[in-house]
Each structure stands twice: as C-alpha cells, then as structure tokens.
C-alpha cells in the first residue's frame, strides 16, 4: 500500500471526533449496589472495540446506554459528540437475541429497518435483497424465522443491521445462541462484512476468542459494579487475515491468556 496516499486518510481519521466517549459513567439503583461504577472509555472513529467481562457485569447495560436505550445516573457519555439517542440514522444495534419478527419473512425482516426510515418500497426491496445475498441467504428470502436455523436467523439479523449502511455498529453478543462451529463461521462472515465497513464497531461478547478475532481493541469490564480494568490493542492484523490463521498465531493465545486472567481477577473483587 502506498504510504503517502494512506497517510492523509489516517490523519483525517485522527482529526475526526471520537465515536464514543464515556467519562465516569455510572448507574446507581435504589437499595442495591451500583451497576456501573464509573466507566471510562474512548473509542476512535473507525475503531473496532470488543467489551468482555464476567456475565451480568453490566456490559449490555453500557451498550444500551451508548445506543440511547437506557439512561445513566452520573458521568458523561457522548456518541459522535452528541448525547446518546435511540434511533440515530447512523447507528445500527443488533440485540443479543436476533429479535426477528416471526410474522415477517426474511426479506421483510431486513426491509423493516428501511421501512421505518421511509425508504420507498422498490428501493428497500432491492437493498434488502442485496443485504440477504451478502450474508448468503439469497435463497431464503421468503422463509419465516420459524423455518430458519439459529445460524440463519442470526444472518438475517446481521443483514438487517448492515442494510441501513450504519457508521456506528453496536453488537450485543451477536452469536451467543449459536453452537461453537456455527459461531466460528458467523465470525468469519462478520469479519468479511466488516472488511467493507469503514465505520466504528462496538461489541459485547463473553467469548474472548471472538473478541480478539473481531476487534482492534479488547476492553475488560470488572464484575459488578463495573469499571474498565484493562485495554488490549490487538495487533494481529485481523482486518486482513483469516480466522483460522489468527487463531494459530502465538500472539493470539498470549492475548487470550491475559484477558482470561483479567476477567478471573475481576471475579475475585
């Protein structure tokens, strides 16, 4: 790659406002320990970040805050310089469960996101068909969720997430419901989709390998009340390499071990 050409783009990226900034974000509830005890996190524009941590630690809660679905009680949180707001045109949120509407077929589910934005019928049909083809489900357009396997349902959910061409992608444990093998195939698919994606991604996962495979940076949350205990830059070049290749890299195992230790320590608190 031509360095001289790449540099202005990198410079522009550095100049762009951070995608997400969290400063001492706290969530307190009455008569119970805090859920978030001051989360500090800054995500650059175009960065892929994975949040890992013990289950029930508040990762999803934090994600919901970024998506503007849940309020927080103290601190400061901005998304592209603004207050978090649900339904931003540039944000796409994929929920932990696929949340497909059972009365719509696969195409209808993908179209939903565009329909809500008022895209005319022909255009949304065309874009949804393309999005389904990208996730390898061109043949399953007219099938309803009950007629799809878990993996296929998750693909439809991914197509629905990408079809709006978001700039900020928020994924909450996108593959939690899948068996180990399907999950790895889905990670490969997501990695392929992310290669054509120039925006910012923030995902929550309990799968450390998934985090290292997909992200530029792994952020570790402690047990409740949650704070950020560690940040790991993943310098494996994941954006260009195959999943199998990544997993074979000794650096991958080293990082995996470190993150694992961090989460374990979080439990001890």
């Amino acid at each position: 790659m031509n360095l001289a050409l790449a540099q202005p783009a990198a410079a522009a990226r550095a100049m762009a406002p951070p995608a997400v900034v969290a400063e001492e974000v706290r969530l307190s509830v009455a008569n119970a320990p805090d859920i978030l005890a001051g989360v500090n996190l800054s995500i650059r524009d175009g960065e892929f970040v994975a949040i890992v941590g013990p289950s029930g630690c508040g990762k999803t809660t934090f994600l919901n805050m970024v998506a503007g679905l849940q309020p927080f009680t103290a601190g400061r949180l901005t998304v592209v310089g603004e207050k978090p707001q649900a339904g931003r045109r540039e944000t796409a949120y994929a929920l932990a469960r696929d949340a497909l509407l059972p009365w719509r077929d696969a195409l209808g589910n993908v179209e939903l996101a565009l329909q809500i934005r008022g895209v005319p019928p022909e255009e949304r049909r065309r874009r949804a068909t393309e999005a389904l083809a990208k996730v390898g489900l061109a043949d399953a357009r007219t099938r309803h969720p009950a007629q799809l396997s878990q993996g296929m349902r998750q693909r439809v959910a991914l197509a629905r997430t990408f079809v709006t061409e978001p700039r900020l992608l928020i994924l909450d444990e996108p593959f939690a419901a899948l068996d180990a093998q399907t999950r790895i195939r889905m990670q490969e698919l997501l990695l392929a989709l992310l290669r054509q994606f120039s925006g910012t991604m923030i995902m929550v996962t309990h799968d450390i390998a998934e985090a290292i495979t997909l992200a530029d940076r792994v952020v570790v949350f402690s047990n409740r009340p949650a704070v950020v205990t560690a940040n790991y830059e993943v310098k494996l070049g994941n954006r260009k390499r195959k999943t199998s290749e990544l997993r074979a890299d000794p650096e991958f195992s080293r990082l995996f071990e470190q993150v694992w230790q961090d989460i374990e320590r979080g439990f001890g608190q």
Partner: protein
Amino acid sequence: MRTLAQTRLSASEIGASAPGFWGSYTMRVWVIRIAVIAVFVAAWKLTGALGILNPVFIGSPEGTVLAFFLQFAKPAMLGLDLFYTVAETLIGFAIGSASGMICAVILFRAPAARQAVAPLIVAANSLPRVALAPLFVLWFGLGIAGKAALVVSLVFFVMLTTTLAGLTQPNKDYEYLARSLGASRRQHILFFIVPAAVPTIVAGLELSLTYSFLGAVAGEIVGGSYGIGVRLTAFANAFEIDKFMALLLLLVIMSTATVQLMRHFTAKLTRWHATEQGDAH
C-alpha cells in the same frame, strides 16, 4: 445449517407428507375421532335399551337421525327459525366484536383509563350475562334486537379482554429493536404491536363466534316467537326429544361450519404463529 432447517420443515409436515392415507397420522386421527363418536352413540343407545334411562327423556340415536332428515320436510318453518337465530348471532357478533376491539384500542392508548376500568371489566365479565336475558327482552323486545343485545353483551367483553391482552403483551426485544431503529409511536404500533396481537385477537373472534350462537339461542329460550331456541323449548316441553336432538345437531353443525369458515379466512393471518408453535395442522 441447511440440513437442520430441512429436518425441522419435514418434521412439521409429517401429516401432509406421509405416503398415502392408510397408516398415516391423519388416518389415526380420524380413526380415534370416529371411535369416540361411536362409543358415545353406543352408550346413548344402551342406556335407553337397558332401561337405565327412559328413552322418553333421552330419545334414541336412530330416532334423532330420522328426525334430523325429516326436519327438512318443512323448509319454510325451519328456514324462519334458522333465519332468526343466524341474524341475531351475526348482528350481535358484528356489533359486539367491533365495539369490543375499538374500546380495547382506546384503552390500550390510555394506560390510566385502562388501569381505572380494569377491575370493572373483570367484574362485568364475570357477571352471568344469560341471567340478564329477561332484562334485554324487556328493553329491546321479543324480536331480533333483544337477542342481539344479549350476544353483544357476551362478545363485547370477550373481544375487549382478548384484544387488550394481545396488544399489551410485553416484549422487551421488540421494544428495544423498535427504539433502536428509530420507530415512531405510530410505526411501533403498526409494525410491532398489532401484528404480534393478531393471533390472540383471531382466537378471541373464534371464541366470540361460538358465544354468539350460545347467546342467541339462550335469548330465544327466554322469550320469542321464532328461532332455534324457541323451537328447542317447544320440543322439550312436548317430550319430542328426537326432534330436539336433531335440531341441536343442526345447530352444532352450523356453528362449527361458521367457525371453520372463519378459520379459513383468518388462517393466512396466523400462519406464522402456527409455524412458530410447531403446529402444521
């Protein structure tokens, strides 16, 4: 992944895809169905034949079958009774279900009002409406209107409660999805809440239709000049049990046929729900 989906599909099509009728699942269902009816008819016949109960009071299967066909010999009389009952049923069903659903939508949009009237709905719904039949006759007369009013009083509450239950069933995932997609309140209702409520509403309509026949006939028994209920009372008072049973059988066939007809038209709306429940039949 593909094989998994195919397995699931074929599993839900067992009844349809089995080779031929003989030995199929559908055949087993029909054998059991006919056996149940046969046992009932045999028990009925034996109770009379063995003198456990006097056939004067319970009639007989063969007498009922004979009376069933003979009742068509006087089509004008039967036609008039049927016309009254069906008219009362359908008018009551239409008014009751429409008003019930409209009120449910209004209450759905006004949570405070909903909470305020919730206990009143339960109380009104637990009231034995058939006991009010004499009152309805007093208010609306002995004709169609009195019975239709009774039907409305039954159907209104069934549709109010089922529609409201359908519209207010909580789904956090849909709510998050709707909000994250930036759906307006109107879109949220149109794309998420209403479609999710359709199967519940359709089930309520089916139940209401059965209740409508019940209400109309019960109203006629209380008082009236024409209708199946009027005729049934007359037959019972004259100890014409076979004729009574025959007319009852006709009523059952009619109401079942009406419900099936409605199912035929609503099947498309709820097909996704049936598939979701793993029920292909």
